[in-house]
């Protein structure tokens, strides 16, 4: 069985960032690239932000994901600029919206993927503990975090089953592909989720004492570099608001 893309590998992670830095980067990506907040000067910086997930993915040796991202993003970014001038009518809007959506969503999705695939559950929990979040938030979030790889594994098995039944795009049951996928996926995930919670509870999750954590996380040089870069757009934004 191959390992799912979203499963954090324990060794071989290249540039190690603190989970908090990764969360900050993801947040920035959502605010400035997806949400295009911050005004003109910040928006001029977005290509720089969009390059970040590529660098990080490459450092984590996720070659294929990184290269696919770079190609898809460049094509849609360039496409957005070029197609606007050379096409008209329906095609114009179609291409523009496709490229626009891709260029806007892809960087955030990739950053999210990077966060999940390079952070183990316990590192993530440790990071949230250090941010002094309440356990009421930490536990559900870490369960979710643990759950992603499982959902993908289940989806892969269901996909295999569908192939053997001759259900595929272009086949005669193509219209029902979504329904066929969702129903078994829900059933399996609910079952696994239930067992997972039971196993965690019998080992004392959710007690009244504050959890400890043996994970060594902390800010290093690379974290400070990324954090400094991440602060730039906020500064520019504030300057913009004050009118300088």
């Amino acid at each position, binding site marked *: 069985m191959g390992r799912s893309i979203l499963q954090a590998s324990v060794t071989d992670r290249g540039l190690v960032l603190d989970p908090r830095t990764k969360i900050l980067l993801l947040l920035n990506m959502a605010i400035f690239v997806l949400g295009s907040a911050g005004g003109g000067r910040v928006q001029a910086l977005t290509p720089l932000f969009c390059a970040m997930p590529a660098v990080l993915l490459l450092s984590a040796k996720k070659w294929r994901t990184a290269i696919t991202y770079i190609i898809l993003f460049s094509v849609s970014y360039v496409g957005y600029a070029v197609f606007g001038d050379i096409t008209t009518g329906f095609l114009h809007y179609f291409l523009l919206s496709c490229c626009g959506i891709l260029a806007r969503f892809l960087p955030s999705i990739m950053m999210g993927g990077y966060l999940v695939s390079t952070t183990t559950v*316990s590192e993530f929990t440790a990071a949230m503990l250090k941010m002094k979040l309440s356990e009421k938030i930490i536990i559900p979030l870490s369960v979710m975090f643990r759950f992603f790889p499982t959902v993908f594994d289940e989806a892969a098995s269901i996909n295999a*089953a569908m192939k053997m039944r001759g259900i595929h795009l272009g086949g005669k049951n193509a219209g029902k592909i979504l329904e066929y996928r969702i129903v078994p996926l829900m059933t399996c995930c609910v079952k696994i989720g239930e067992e997972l919670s039971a196993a965690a509870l019998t080992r004392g999750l959710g007690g009244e004492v504050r959890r400890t954590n043996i994970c060594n996380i902390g800010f290093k040089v690379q974290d400070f570099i990324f954090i400094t870069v991440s602060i730039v757009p906020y500064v520019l934004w504030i300057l913009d608001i004050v009118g300088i």
Partner: protein
Amino acid sequence: MIEIKNVSFRHENADEGSIHDITLTIPDGQCVLLCGESGSGKTTITRLINGLIPHYYEGEMHGEVIANGLNVTKSELYETAKKVGSVFQNPRSQFFCVDTTSELAFGCENMGLPEADILSRIDKVTAEMNIKSLMGQNIFELSGGEKQKIACGSVSALQPEIMVLDEPTSNLDLNAIEELKETVQKWKQSGKTIIIAEHRLYWLREICDRVICTQNGRIEFDMTMEEFKSLSDEERNAYGLRPLFAENAVQTVGNFSGTDILTLNNFSFSYDKKEVLNIPKLEIPVGSIVAVTGHNGAGKSTFSRCLCGLEKRFKGTVLLNGETLKSRQLLKKCYMVMQDVNHQLFCETVEEEVQLGMNEENAGKVQKILEELDLDGFAQRHPMSLSGGQKQRTAIASAMLADKEILLFDEPTSGLDFKHMEQTAKLLSSLKNKKTVFVATHDPELISRCCTHILRIENGVIDEFTSR
């Protein structure tokens, strides 16, 4: 000491109670085997002891359970967790972390122990259980036996006095069972009280002191292991139990009359440049039932995936009825009944389900196939509402109607009791001489009941291929 006092329990949405008025006392240091048919109340009893009932699985409960002085029924789960450790059957769903070290630390972290304490406990557990070499690894890359060791280790690290194991061998091969046996023996020597609910009995012969059999939610018998050993296999079967001595398994094969040959050519496959399967040529009689055995990770599942045409990069072929089938055609001719059959049931009724992907010419046969597989009464039911065996048969029915020639079963009897294992064996036997069947399994009793050939794969190559 564990005291279960007049306990009855009914699950929230169930019509009938799962156990009725059970009273049981288990002294310190005793090792108890809980056996009985599926649904007879074994698992319910284990959940009473670890507190999952009534705190997690809700329902109507009477009576109370006291474990080493702690009232489990009233205490919160994290209090119980300090006294009672639990190991479950499914390796996929009992790990909370992705890497082994954090997993061992997980329970201790929940207790809020200081970091230094946790590290010294981990050291102690890894030394005791001989799992130092597994530390710092990705759990999802370990074999089934190693996963179960980590599960045991993470419970051990909490240092509970009572251990509860719910069908811990369901997903394990024979070697892994031996390893689990060693772990349980160590726990026993250190004086822990152990309760094991299990269908596979033979590995517990020398471990358990006492055997409790449940039936319909009541205790059917409660005897010492010595007395239990003196029962005959027939008596044990009558209680729905599997043989206590694996070597006594019933041998029924006979009347296999295939002469046609199915040839597998060039069955080799690599993941990330590492060769995991290498079978240049293999001839298999059409209509036989081939048990595919071998250790976890030996290449069985890759073999199955290649044969079903699920691996795109797979270049091998199958020669069947003079036709050479490549990956794409194999996808049409082969069908795998997965271990978790829930993955392959898509429709709203059984009738729709079996007709999905059906060869149109077979429209007239639907009723007949449903009858043959004992499903005619369930045609309008939702497949997800069926029992495990009925789901399995639904999957088979759909394969028959889609004119699949080769059927693969992945661990069809894992976690099944005697009666259901026997049913599956009969079902497989009924396919003999009609379809070519491959069964990937660790279950020696299933093999001895229905398989005509054994194919053993080790390290990706054929270790042995024999007819029985």
